[in-house]
């Protein structure tokens, strides 16, 4: 196979960026989600409204911020609100279209763990950062998009700890819990795209990147992965997308 001219991480980022539509409001987590959201704004979605939990609404950074509270986010925002306000007035009522999250661990029903690895909460094998804004982003945004690199250790049958609820243990759980948003509609990995089955809510492989096989994805999934009848082969990043992404990574902070 010839070298495609882009990395799987670049493919993942451009695929994640394409999941965002122009004019959407998007609550952005730091890391991969922030890179993808900024790529979307630099390419097909110039009107994308980026909202960071630091209270910056409508941020338009010219380079990739390292944190959710870099100065460039405040300086380019339409408005900056307090942190109680961003959670209570903006996130909680379901005003925001898409929540864009990363995941330490994610399971078959798209529940996310960013708290602890290991069966015990006390004295965990690995202590992860915790919830931050993710629990309520996953509960309250109209829909959730997850972007995460895939491995059998991170894509597990059941997460060790539920930090952010996807579909709980299956159909009806979100409604029963009173979660107002629709939940994760797409999980974008470095191999392809998983979407919840409309009936079972189980994550199902629906899209593959060029050159990636179903078996490769199965090998990187810690449960018996359901596969759509004929998963789409997703288009490779266009030259303009790649150029925009590389320019974002290269852009040095400054004005």
């Amino acid at each position, binding site marked *: 196979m010839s070298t495609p001219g882009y990395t799987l991480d670049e493919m993942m980022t451009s695929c994640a960026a394409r999941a965002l539509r122009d004019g959407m409001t998007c609550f952005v987590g730091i890391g991969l989600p922030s890179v993808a959201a900024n790529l979307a704004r630099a390419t097909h979605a110039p009107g994308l409204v980026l909202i960071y939990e630091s209270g910056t609404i409508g941020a338009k950074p010219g380079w990739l911020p390292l944190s959710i509270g870099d100065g460039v986010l405040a300086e380019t925002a339409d408005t900056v609100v307090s942190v109680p306000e961003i959670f209570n007035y903006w996130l909680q009522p379901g005003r925001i279209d898409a929540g864009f999250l990363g995941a330490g661990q994610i399971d078959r029903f798209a529940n996310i763990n960013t708290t602890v690895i290991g069966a015990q909460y006390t004295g965990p094998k690995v202590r992860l950062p915790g919830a931050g804004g993710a629990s309520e982003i996953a509960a309250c945004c109209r829909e959730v998009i997850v972007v995460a690199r895939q491995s059998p250790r991170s894509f597990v049958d059941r997460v060790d700890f539920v*930090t952010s609820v996807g579909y709980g243990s299956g159909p009806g759980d979100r409604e029963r819990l009173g979660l107002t948003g629709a939940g994760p509609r797409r999980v974008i990995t470095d191999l392809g795209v998983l979407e919840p089955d409309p009936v079972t809510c189980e994550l199902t492989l629906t899209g593959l990147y060029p050159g990636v096989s179903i078996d490769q994805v199965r090998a990187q999934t810690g449960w018996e992965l359901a596969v759509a009848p004929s998963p789409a082969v997703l288009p490779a990043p266009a030259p303009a997308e790649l150029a925009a992404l590389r320019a974002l990574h290269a852009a040095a902070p400054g004005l």
Partner: protein
Amino acid sequence: MAEIVSLADAVAAAIHDGDAVAMEGFTHLIPFAAGHEVIRQGRHDLTLIRMTPDVIYDQLIGAGCASKLVFSWGGNPGAGSLHRFRDAIENGWPAPLETEEHSHAGMVNRYVAGASGIPFAVLRGYAGTGLEGLPGLNGQPAVRRVTCPFTGESLAAVAALRPDVAVIHAQRADRTGNVQLWGITGVQKEAVLAARRSIVTVEEIVAELIPQPGAIVLPGWTVGYVAPVPGGAHPSYALGYSSRDNDYYVAWTAISRDRERFRQWLATEVLAA
């Protein structure tokens, strides 16, 4: 009325061993210099409260100042893990650290309840998460459910935070101790109003506070001590005065990962400073 004093005097007067201390600042305006002064004065057995116990609490935890931590996100933003925080939780080094963990939405509402003088806050949150089952520092559930008396809806309830001391950094204060901060203002106003005592470090003390877009002002009579500490938020930043020192955050990972390297850092950068 706020007293304008040195940072060392403010910490000596306001922060005691065993206190519950909230140092707030959401990425921006983090009171690092005050944190280092707490380490230098050898405070211990503190209950540290903070939404994002990032590098500042990694330093205080590693230095042995804390026995308890109340928080909602413990990472080095954009740069990785907090190894002193993890070492304390995973291995009990340098001392065991009891924790009470929330979501950001829960923590902000706990501060809002504290500032509002009511015993708890309600929010649409926690439902279905593992956080809802965790005990608080008192051994009781940290999150409970309440039924809305008007609609019958089930909501999460979290207890008010009432820290002994709040510590924040701001851009400016005037000579009577009125404090002005702008940019990302986080949860600082709520933290100061919720706390019994407070310390505000500022970039400068000015004759008159010139209005700034989006600024909040804490009147001097709501503040305990004001200490001029230019650059006191470094490696965090003060909008209009400095930029976030992202290289410091990235470099912190290697210092924090190794106990000996951390001890050397503490000796040269904090204790000898």
